C-alpha cells in the first residue's frame, strides 16, 4: 500500500476533528472523544478511539492499473457500550461513502461494527471495533 493512502486519510480526518494542542477530538453528545493516530502515545480519557490502517493485497489488472484496498479500523473505548454506539453513529455520519481527495483519491465504504461492547479482565472501558473499507485505483503510467 502506498504510504500516501495512510497519511492522506489521517490528514483528512484531522481536518474533520477539533485540535487541542497535539491531540484531536470529535464531540459526541457534548463529550470529547479523543482521536489517537498510529505512533501517538495514547492518554486514556472518558471516551477515546484509536485508528489502525490495515492494507490488503494490491491487485494489478490487465491494463496495468493497480487497485489498493484495505480497511481503517477504529478501536472505540467508552465507559458504557451505549455511548460506544453513539460514537459509531458519529463516525458513520462523518465517514460513510466519502471520497477523499488529497494527493490520492480514496473511496471509503460503509462503517461496519466488527465487535461491540468488549470488556476484558482489568480493563476500565468497553471496546467497540469498527471497520471501514477503502479503495484506491492507481493508473498505469
Amino acid at each position: 500500500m502506498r504510504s500516501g493512502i495512510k497519511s492522506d486519510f489521517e490528514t483528512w480526518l484531522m481536518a474533520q476533528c477539533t485540535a487541542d494542542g497535539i491531540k484531536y477530538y470529535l464531540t459526541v453528545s457534548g463529550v470529547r472523544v479523543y482521536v489517537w493516530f498510529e505512533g501517538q502515545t495514547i492518554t486514556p480519557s472518558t471516551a477515546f478511539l484509536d485508528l489502525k490502517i490495515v492494507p490488503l493485497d494490491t491487485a494489478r489488472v490487465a491494463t496495468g492499473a493497480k487497485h489498493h484496498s484495505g480497511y481503517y479500523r477504529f478501536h472505540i473505548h467508552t465507559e458504557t457500550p451505549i455511548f460506544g454506539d453513539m460514537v459509531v453513529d458519529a463516525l458513520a455520519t462523518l465517514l460513510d461513502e466519502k471520497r477523499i481527495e488529497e494527493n490520492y483519491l480514496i473511496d471509503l465504504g460503509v462503517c461496519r461494527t466488527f465487535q461491540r461492547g468488549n470488556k476484558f479482565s482489568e480493563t476500565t472501558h468497553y471496546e467497540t471495533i469498527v471497520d471501514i473499507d477503502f479503495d484506491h485505483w492507481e493508473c498505469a503510467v
Partner: protein
Amino acid sequence: MSFSDDIENEFAAIIHKRNNVVADAALDLYANMIKASPVDTGELRRSWQLPKEIRRNTWLVSNYAPHALIIDGGRRKVATKNGMKWVGSEQLQDGYAPVIKRTEKTLQKELNRL
C-alpha cells in the same frame, strides 16, 4: 425432453456447482484460519470447529477458545487502571479479518466463473 426441462436441468446444474464452490470456500477458510492462528499453548489452533452448513449456502466456521475474540480484534492497546496495556497477538497483528477478506475475494472469483 422439452425446452423448459432443459432450462430446469441447466439451472439445477448451476445451483449444484454454486453449492460446491461455497462448500469448498468454507473448507479453505477453515484451513487458512488454522494456519493463521498464532500458537502459544496451541489451544486456539486446536479449537477450530469443522465448517457446518447451517442453511443453504451459509456455512459456519467457529472457534470456541475463550481468547479467540481478543485475538480476532488484532493487536491493540486497551485502558486499564494502570494505564494502557497491549492485548491481542503479536503473531497476528491484524486479527483474522485479512484472512477472511482473501477468502471472500477468491470465492467471488470462483462464483463469477460459473
